[in-house]
């Protein structure tokens, strides 16, 4: 216990905890090095591009969750939103063509907005609000698909092939993920909204006292989370040529783990999308490493669960919250 406490104090010394900044990239580099030595083929450009493509969906999902976590909340509805978006895309592609993408993402915007509204206006804690809206959204996905997976037919695939192609050797999904990441990073760092997110997450009473519209900031953060979750769902649907009400199941845990492992504080106000990018890569490489060393694919979630518990327990800043509920 003593060693654990010492380790914690190194990591969690608030903004002066330089280890919080350094540890995630260091872990990532070590992981890459270990696997690179074990399997020399790993460090080839084409292998790395495959890993990046595989990470894209997880990262986009986690980037959205980063907003919800930064304001001091959490979004548990993201995997349901992603699944609903995949169903909407698959259902509407034959009729609307490329417009189906727009509708699918707007559905994510709407459900994120609804989560935010429930959280803020009805004063429901965000984990309950998003758990509940997640349930509603999952139900909508089941209704819209009759509970079945919908294959994107040959005729509609013309509208999705672009997603699976490459531009100058770089997969389009990777470009989309990077674009979403850069946009999120810029929004958090350089806009009023981003600044307000950090202030609300780091000290809500003070943010309210200087006149920041806390409610609006929170609603907007959940809306962004919903939009990015839908984008992740759409990418996934294109990659698998299918939409399904449980397409994105099992992605919530790795996405939240990616945010926390990257070094964003679960208590809010500290972190960012750039850290989530590192976290998502760590999760991805751990996943690959597990198949590599022969861990049963079914045990993946166990590992992610353990990683999340470990990351939160060593990084949570107990000077900020005395009582843990």
């Amino acid at each position: 216990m003593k060693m654990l406490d010492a380790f914690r104090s190194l990591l969690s010394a608030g903004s002066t905890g330089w280890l919080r900044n350094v540890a995630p990239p260091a872990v990532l580099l070590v992981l890459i090095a270990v696997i690179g030595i074990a399997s020399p083929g790993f460090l080839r450009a084409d292998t790395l591009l495959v890993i990046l493509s595989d990470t894209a969906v997880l990262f986009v999902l986690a980037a959205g969750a980063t907003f919800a976590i930064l304001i001091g909340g959490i979004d548990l509805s993201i995997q349901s939103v992603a699944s609903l978006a995949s169903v909407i895309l698959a259902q509407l592609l034959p009729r609307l063509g490329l417009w189906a993408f727009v509708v699918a993402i707007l559905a994510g915007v709407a459900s994120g907005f609804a989560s935010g509204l429930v959280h803020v206006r009805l004063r429901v804690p965000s984990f309950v609000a998003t758990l509940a809206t997640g349930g509603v959204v999952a139900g909508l996905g089941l209704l819209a698909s009759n509970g079945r997976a919908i294959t994107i037919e040959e005729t509609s695939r013309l509208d999705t092939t672009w997603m699976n192609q490459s531009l100058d050797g770089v997969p389009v999904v990777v470009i989309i993920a990077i674009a979403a990441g850069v946009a999120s990073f810029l929004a958090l760092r350089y806009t009023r909204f981003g600044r307000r997110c950090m202030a609300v997450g780091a000290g809500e009473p003070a943010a309210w006292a200087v006149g920041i519209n806390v409610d609006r900031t929170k609603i907007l953060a959940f809306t962004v989370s919903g939009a990015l979750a839908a984008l992740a769902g759409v990418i996934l649907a294109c990659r698998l040529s299918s939409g399904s009400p449980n397409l994105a199941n099992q992605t919530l845990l790795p996405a939240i783990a990616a945010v926390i492992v990257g070094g964003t504080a679960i208590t809010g106000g500290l972190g960012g999308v750039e850290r989530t990018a590192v976290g998502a890569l760590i999760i991805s490489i751990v996943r690959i490493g597990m198949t590599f060393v022969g861990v049963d694919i079914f045990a993946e979630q166990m590992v992610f669960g353990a990683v999340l518990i470990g990351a939160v327990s060593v990084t949570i800043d107990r000077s900020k919250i005395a009582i843990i509920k």
Partner: protein
Amino acid sequence: MTAMLAAVQISKSFVGVPALSNVDVEVRPSEVVGLIGENGAGKSTLMRVLAGTHRPDSGSLTLDAKPLRLRNARDAAVHGIGMVFQEQSLLLNLSVAENVYFGQEAQFARFGIVNWRRMNLAARRQLEKIGVDIDVTTRTSELTFAARQMVELAKALTLEESTQRQLVILLDEPTSMLGQADIETLFARVRALKARASFVFVSHRLEEVLKISDRVYVMKDGRVVAEHAADAVTAPRLHEIMVGRGLQSEYYKEMKQEPPGAEVLLETSNLGVARIFRNVDLKLHAGEVVGIAGVVGSGREEVTRCVGGFLPQTNGMLSVAGVPTRIVSPGQAVKAGIGYVPRERRIEGLVMFLSIAINITLANLDCVMSHGVIDYRRERNLAVDWIRRLRIKAPSPDIACRNLSGGNQQKVVLARWMNAGSRILVLDHPTRGLDVGAKEEVYELVRELSAQGKGILLISDTLEETIGLAHTVLVMRDGEITARFDASRGRKPDQVELLRHMV
């Protein structure tokens, strides 16, 4: 008479700041001891040492001339020492009986199952002892504040059953939230119980202390500075000892106090918040400091909260620079040019985990936006400039505010409002928790702000500070303004005069 409970040469510091230095007090059998002093004088710390919740750094306690070591409140209870808390310690979701015997349920339990009937009977007996008629099965949240205070007292008196000794009951500002009739009831109970218990009584209201106590200790800056028999001293005399010195005009930069301008920045008429304060008329001119004096519960805190937008008004009018304005959130207050400097600096004042620069620009990010994005270089330069102008001690504008000392944190809050161009500042206990040097710097800043034409509404921990800084002092009692004093340079009113209208 000999001492029953005594504190001998007690000292206690919190992170290097001494709260008690070599304090000697004693409590004799069947006695009420009054304990007075300004905020921060060390009264509550001393009470907590006596109650076993704080351990002294040095010094010792004795009980009946034998050394007494208290590790926690339970230890104190075993020795017959109980505390009635200032912020009531009852759990509002439990019944009265459950509260009275909270933590002592075992005596009513068999095989882990509590016999509620027996507990309720015992609780009823306890309440009868102090002459209170309350249904013990009521949820505590349904009781009035005064009734809860009585339940607290009954709870402290359950100690009688666990020890044969005389009890010592510590009452930490039990009257601050009570009305006159309730105070009389409480005092009658205390007198009736003197045969079985001694009391230590902390209060801000000196008359009250004199009325109930046999002996009075006066504390200042963590020391006991006087001890008097209650019938040999007057309230004004006590106050003089408590404050410790006459008004020192130099300390409050009185020579720099200039007459205010003619422009009225803030005006209220009949301002009120239902059941808290009413009929507040005040005028704040450019360059003026208006101080509000009053005891806890007088409503002065709420007046400042109302002006700051935290407590929406329910009655009357408020106008800013002649324009009637309705302020129902801090955001609207900020827009109207009102900057609120809260007493809870670390919670409402600053976002402690963010940098100085970010905290300074938080109220008007516009000043560092260019082409729709935040210009970090400009923000940093701005912060460097404020750090220099307000002499904030910080190695860089990028360090988090939590790493600054209290005085420097307060300056960051002031820098923010100055940067936002707020013309009206509400200072809510601006020097709370600051050391003497930091206080003086804040006073200096207050004078500078006045010279720049800002209007300042002030409430503070001490009367001395209120009078020293203000041009005009309003006195409040029970939610109403009871007196107004001119406090301009050379015409400072006497504290005793103010006190008469406060209590």
